[in-house]
């Protein structure tokens, strides 16, 4: 399949140059026109996959050009993204009614354009060949091409995930480091976006680039948003999630970050139990390798002491295909080890019940491990028998079972199958 063809119709050579720079690392064909009339001619000749169309232009403006494109049976299905500084409600409604696919408000970042275009065509990074320089901008020396390479390969949750934290306060970096190092992840902490830039440069070898980035939204002059653009300008980091760090009341900053393309925001004070699970979710990683192990032909699911709502929801989500995979592979025994659980709250209760129900529906025999010895003097701590009693309130996993035996050790549970 040939590289997607993108037509930029704009009377500004600056815009053509920025588009040329933005797509420099991608395997695309760029064609340019400087007004609506020329745009129609080039569109008919080149049949582009996407058209980026300015509004205010001499000879024929973008609105008239869009109308003519939509009236031409041969061109009407080419998706058009309007590029305009005039984002008033009336203008946006007018162009939306004319069948425009999307619009980008000026001022814009190169990353923003790539993001919008990538929703319409499959953008693939290219290997080291410079994108064509727009003919009208030939006099300008375009910055050296980013060292293009394939997007970063996604790791498993149990591999050494690299977390880049850009945060002014060392105590925050230290807290996050402590939370994620428990699962074997590595942290690089930087006190400012400027200090972090070398870690996201196109020259960084793929193995050294971060897998997830956390940046404070409190840096002045929207520096976190500029940093985001720098991250996205590196084709290797096109899919690496970037998350904001801020206080709960910083709603404007959170909205700005969301509109820019951040994967979300983590608010301070940090919930250090939830935080790793939020990062796992942002990276779209299967979290089951953190909890499932095997002993012989038995699968062990160990529920940890600290388990967040996010983690429990994702565990249920990813357990379904995992349990089906066990059965497909010939395994049919599971031990649910609850001995480490100190607080048996509703989300975890539901998660355990859902997983056991899934086992029932797949005919996986299951046992619960724990003992009354794991009770401490704290009133909120339940014994495993109390946890099982709580589980019985949710009927599905226990249908048809008059009693549920709780085994004090895994060995005892395995021996009972």
């Amino acid at each position, binding site marked *: 399949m040939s590289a997607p063809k993108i037509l930029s119709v704009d009377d500004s*050579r600056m815009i053509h140059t920025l588009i040329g720079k933005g797509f420099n690392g991608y395997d695309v064909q760029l064609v340019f026109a400087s007004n609506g009339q020329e745009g129609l001619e080039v569109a008919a000749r080149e049949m582009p996959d996407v058209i980026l169309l300015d509004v205010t232009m001499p000879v024929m403006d973008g609105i008239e050009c869009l109308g003519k494109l939509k009236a031409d049976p041969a061109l009407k299905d080419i998706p058009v993204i309007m590029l305009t*500084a005039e984002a008033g409600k*009336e203008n946006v409604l007018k162009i939306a009614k004319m069948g425009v696919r999307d619009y980008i408000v*000026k*001022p*814009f970042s190169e990353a923003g354009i790539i993001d919008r275009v990538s929703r319409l065509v499959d953008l693939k990074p290219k290997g080291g060949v410079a994108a064509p320089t727009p003919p009208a901008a030939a*006099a*300008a020396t375009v910055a050296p091409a980013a060292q293009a390479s394939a997007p970063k390969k996604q790791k498993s949750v149990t591999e050494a995930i690299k977390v880049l934290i850009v945060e002014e306060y060392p105590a925050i970096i230290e807290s996050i480091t402590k939370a994620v190092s428990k699962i074997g992840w590595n942290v690089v902490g930087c006190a400012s976006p400027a200090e972090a830039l070398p870690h996201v440069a196109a020259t960084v070898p793929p193995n050294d680039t971060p897998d997830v980035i956390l940046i404070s939204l409190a840096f002045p002059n929207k520096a976190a948003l500029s940093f985001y653009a720098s991250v996205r300008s590196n084709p290797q980091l096109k899919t690496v999630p970037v998350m904001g760090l801020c206080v709960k009341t910083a709603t404007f900053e959170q909205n700005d970050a969301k509109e820019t393309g951040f994967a979300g925001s983590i608010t301070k004070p940090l919930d250090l139990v939830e935080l790793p699970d939020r990062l796992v979710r942002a990276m779209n990683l299967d979290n089951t390798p953190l909890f499932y192990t095997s002993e012989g032909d038995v699968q062990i699911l160990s529920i940890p002491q600290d388990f967040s709502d996010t983690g429990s929801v994702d565990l249920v989500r990813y357990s379904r295909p995992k349990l089906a995979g066990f059965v497909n592979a010939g395994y049919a025994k599971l031990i649910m080890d609850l001995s480490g659980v100190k607080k048996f709250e509703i989300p975890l209760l539901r998660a355990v019940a859902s997983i056991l129900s899934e086992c029932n529906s797949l005919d996986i025999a299951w046992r619960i491990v724990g003992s009354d010895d794991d009770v401490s003097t704290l009133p909120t701590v339940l014994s495993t028998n109390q946890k099982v009693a709580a589980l019985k309130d949710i009927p599905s996993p226990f249908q048809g079972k008059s009693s549920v035996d709780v085994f004090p050790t895994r060995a005892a549970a395995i021996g009972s199958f």
Partner: protein
Amino acid sequence: MNIDAAILADPNKRGTLILEILNYYVPEVMQTMAGLTVVPGGGNPSAPQPSLLKGVTGSIGLSGKVTGIVYTAFQENLAKVVAEKILGGEASDQDINDVVAELTNMITGNLKSQLCDMGYNCALSIPSVVRGEHISVSAKTASVSVRSDYVFDGGLGSLTLQVFATLEK
């Protein structure tokens, strides 16, 4: 940005509102397009005429329920720095003119959007750019004359905006 549309109904406050819009969008445009930090360096919502400008000066006309013109005057060295930051390399005079025209378009386009959302629909002209050390501009029939200076971080120079406008409901 959130603007109280009722303010525009008061002719005495129109200049202040336009100044507020400019103070929001000029730093945003410069930060997003050139990565440069800009702060308002003083503005006058009832600026005297004629207004004296110098440097590389972009202008865009407004017509409709708002008639008027927006001027953006970059100090010459600043215009070159901004153009080279945006284009990523050496900028010729033609490149600089083109960048100033486009930045003027972005600032004026956002001003226009805010005015349109408040019921003052208007259209923009194609930007044009002039250069000079003594550019005197005036619009005697304009009911609003706003002048505002912006200072770039790092001593790169300053930018002056002059808006002449008449608003009709």
